[in-house]
């Protein structure tokens, strides 16, 4: 029984990784074919070093993802706090419903609806506005709900008495927020930001509809490539990204596993950092 389960697991992973294996294999191809493998060479990895459009668009995507993550985190965190403290139930519900729309809606509908808006505005002011800024707006819009949804639970876990205490002890509301509330919800904010970053980096459909003449993201660039015979340098670039992510994930796992296995040192570390924080404040 157990053996069967293991075989099943391995089989699933084989299928899951077959295309990845194909990609990595062909990234070492010695010719520029992505269909037939003729021999090993590192030329496609070397070609990345010399730049080119693939690298440029990847950098575009990283910048876009970083900017949209930061903005949507700031706006989204503020929104989560605001929504959390809303008094009237129906306003709260309505806001949450609207916030959730981009998450529930299929990407293609979100993309098209924004495209219609941008085109109409563009026609009105008689200028082309499709480009970096429209993609940025679109990415912020679909990232916002994820940020809000990852901050919200942390706010709920927050003990309101803590804020009260801070206020009683002479903090201004702003200080109370910065010194008491913010540190408590930081994990939620950060995971929201990472979510926003990866979503934006990976998004193709919405960028495809809101993109214009002046700005290409990595996925939209790939889309224009996959229609024609492209070169294995894309594979090389993707392989590097995959390996980088794998290494990052494994490192984080090792670190957290070590923290869990030897509970004491981790705790000690934590309290030390807390103490440090106090000293800093003084």
């Amino acid at each position, binding site marked *: 029984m157990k053996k069967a*389960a293991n075989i099943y*697991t391995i089989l699933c992973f084989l299928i899951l990784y*077959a295309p990845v294996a194909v990609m990595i294999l062909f990234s070492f191809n010695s010719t520029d074919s992505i269909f037939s493998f003729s021999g090993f060479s590192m030329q496609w990895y070397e070609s990345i070093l010399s730049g080119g459009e693939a690298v440029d668009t990847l950098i575009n995507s990283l910048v876009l993802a970083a900017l949209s993550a930061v903005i949507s985190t700031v706006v989204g965190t503020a929104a989560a706090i605001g929504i959390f*403290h809303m008094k009237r139930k129906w306003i709260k519900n309505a*806001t949450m419903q609207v916030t959730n729309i981009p998450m529930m*809606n299929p990407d293609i509908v979100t993309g098209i609806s924004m495209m219609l808006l941008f085109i109409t505005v563009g026609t009105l002011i008689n200028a082309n506005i499709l480009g970096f800024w429209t993609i940025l707006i679109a990415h912020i819009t679909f990232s916002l709900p994820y940020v809000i949804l990852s901050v919200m639970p942390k706010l709920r876990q927050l003990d309101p008495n803590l804020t009260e205490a801070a206020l009683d002890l002479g903090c201004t509301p702003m200080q109370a927020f910065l010194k008491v509330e913010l540190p408590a919800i930081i994990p939620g904010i950060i995971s929201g930001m990472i979510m926003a970053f990866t979503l934006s980096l990976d998004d193709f459909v919405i960028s495809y509809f809101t993109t214009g003449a002046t700005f290409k993201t990595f996925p939209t660039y790939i889309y224009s490539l996959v229609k024609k015979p492209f070169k294995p340098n894309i594979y090389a670039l993707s392989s590097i990204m995959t390996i980088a992510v794998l290494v990052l994930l494994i490192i984080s796992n090792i670190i957290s596993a070590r923290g869990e296995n030897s509970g004491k040192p981790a705790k000690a570390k934590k309290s030390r950092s807390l103490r440090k924080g106090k000293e800093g404040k003084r």
Partner: protein
Amino acid sequence: MKRRSLLQRFAAAPHIAWSVLFIVIPLLFIIYYTFTDAAGGFTLENLATIASPEYLMIFLRSVMFSILATVICLLIGYPLAYRIASMKPRTQRIVIVLVMLPMWLNFLIRTYCLKILLNDQGIINTFLGNFGIEPLKLLNTSGAVIFAMVYNYLPYMILPIYTVISKMDQNLLTAAADLGCNRFQTMTKVVLPLSFSGIMSGVTMVFVPSISTFYISDAMGGRTFSLIGDTIERQFKEADNYNVGSALSLVLMILIIISMSIMNKYSDDDGGVVV
């Protein structure tokens, strides 16, 4: 009740303004285009167009493909998630990383690699050719489209189910066994109902992208049959018919809202005894 600070009062304002501008108004545009013709006059013709048998067939086909993809994802993903959850904690973590890893690869590239695997002279057929098997028609079939959907969205099914199962109280299983359940009964009466919320979020996360995808059906189906996603895309990018395109999007949106609310209904009531 205590007074809200200025911050708490107005913190949501930018977000609300943003949502109105970039969520609500764009959706109004879709509605506007649905009910107007090319000249801007009111018409119901777009809805009439997509009520024709051909378009209904497209909707039916898309719904069927995505239901099949979702069910297959569930059938493959559930046992896998269950198996992963029963591994040693350290192995678990690594295996989950392995499940997530392909998701970090751009999905266009992932799909393209699938295409290379499945094509007539692709890797699988070349391999089979060594044994004297004629090339099978794997690509450009409805099976290929469904397979690509399953492949692309399987992690979305595994992760939520895994999360729920791994948090499940092991004592419940022991209790079930003590009370005379055999393994099969424990599975159907305890584990399955308790992981229902995970199943539901997995189903939603697979169903919605599958029903609206346009690249997968383009690449894997050879464009010889249409799903909703590519039909919508074609209206905007090729056929230059924003009105019919908007009507299709609106219907798709409503379809998804309906199916989501049905799913919510069944996931909200008492831990669901669907099975």
